[in-house]
């Protein structure tokens, strides 16, 4: 995997794992690869993987079981929260940028609708 070297790597590892968890590559309760294996797969440092996992354990998105490894939480409510949080983060960026172009909230909603309709039309064509 290619990382953006301007952004802390541990943060990008977390986002990578969130993505795996929310798109179903890793399901609730699934075991994560071993720390060193993740480091090799992503070509990053073991310590950086460890930092990303520690933060995710604290957040409750993954759970550590002594001697067994790390598992995606089986708490689907927590995963739904995570998804909501990621969606809001993405929207916040779009919202900020459109606001910077002096669009009102109504105009933002209208443009978003227009965008989705046009995109849908393009895909059906």
């Amino acid at each position, binding site marked *: 995997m290619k*990382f*953006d*070297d*301007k*952004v*802390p*790597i*541990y*943060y990008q590892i977390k986002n990578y794992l969130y993505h795996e968890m929310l798109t179903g590559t890793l399901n609730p309760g699934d075991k994560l690869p071993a720390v*060193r294996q993740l*480091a*090799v797969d992503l*070509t*990053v*440092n*073991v*310590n*950086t993987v460890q*930092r990303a996992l520690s933060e995710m354990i604290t957040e409750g998105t993954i759970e550590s079981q002594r001697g067994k490894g790390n598992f995606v939480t089986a708490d689907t409510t927590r995963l739904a929260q995570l998804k909501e949080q990621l969606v809001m983060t993405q929207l916040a960026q779009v919202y900020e940028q459109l606001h910077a172009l002096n669009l009102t909230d109504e105009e933002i909603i209208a443009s978003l609708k227009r965008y989705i309709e046009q995109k849908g039309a393009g895909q059906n064509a």
Partner: protein
Amino acid sequence: MPNVLAIQGLTYKRNQKLILKNIDLTLETGKIVGLLGENGAGKTTLMRLITGSAQGSGDIMVSDATTATARKAHVSFSEQLHGFNKNVKISRVVDFYQTVYSDFDLNRYHELADFLQLNGELKLLALSKGMREKLIIALTLARQTDLYLLDEPFGGIDSMSRKKIISSIIQWKPDNATMLISDHYVTEIAPILDEIVVVKDQTIAVHQKTDTIRSESGMDIEDYYESLYAGGVDHD
């Protein structure tokens, strides 16, 4: 966290010329650290001072060893194989390492050699630049020790060899060992570095965590490193 390397007030002169002055540097256990600096900045010299093959003034402690002789047992340095006859087979070099270093683990060597696709029957003169670097890495990492010093392991080799070497570093660095890797081009190894140390103007100009640099400066590691030579980091 305990330190694997502690250097205090290290100064080194060669032929009356000051090469390194007032170096203070401590490295924690378990880290991968990039040693950066221009050609001739003194990176190799610093490594040779750590191993004890060069003598300066000041204190150098590796694990609990302070004398040059005692330090050698705790440091695995990527020797450039210059002492070997070019007609010697890889397997003979491996025998030599096994005899000289009591911490040389033959099983580890074979795992590394398999991974890096090194054929023990080849003679040194038959090795490409990439193969030669792979052999040096396998020999260096096959020792089980506290501190690994890799001196420009990526110089002039193709990208596939480079990727293999990076991968072998991630897989075979013992958890409790620290690794110092020198390079003058940081981009390719930046994702595997915990910290960088920059040698500039005969001393340590910067010692910083890579993720701290990324989050505080918003720059990638290469740009940050280059900014040190452009008259300081731009904070605008």
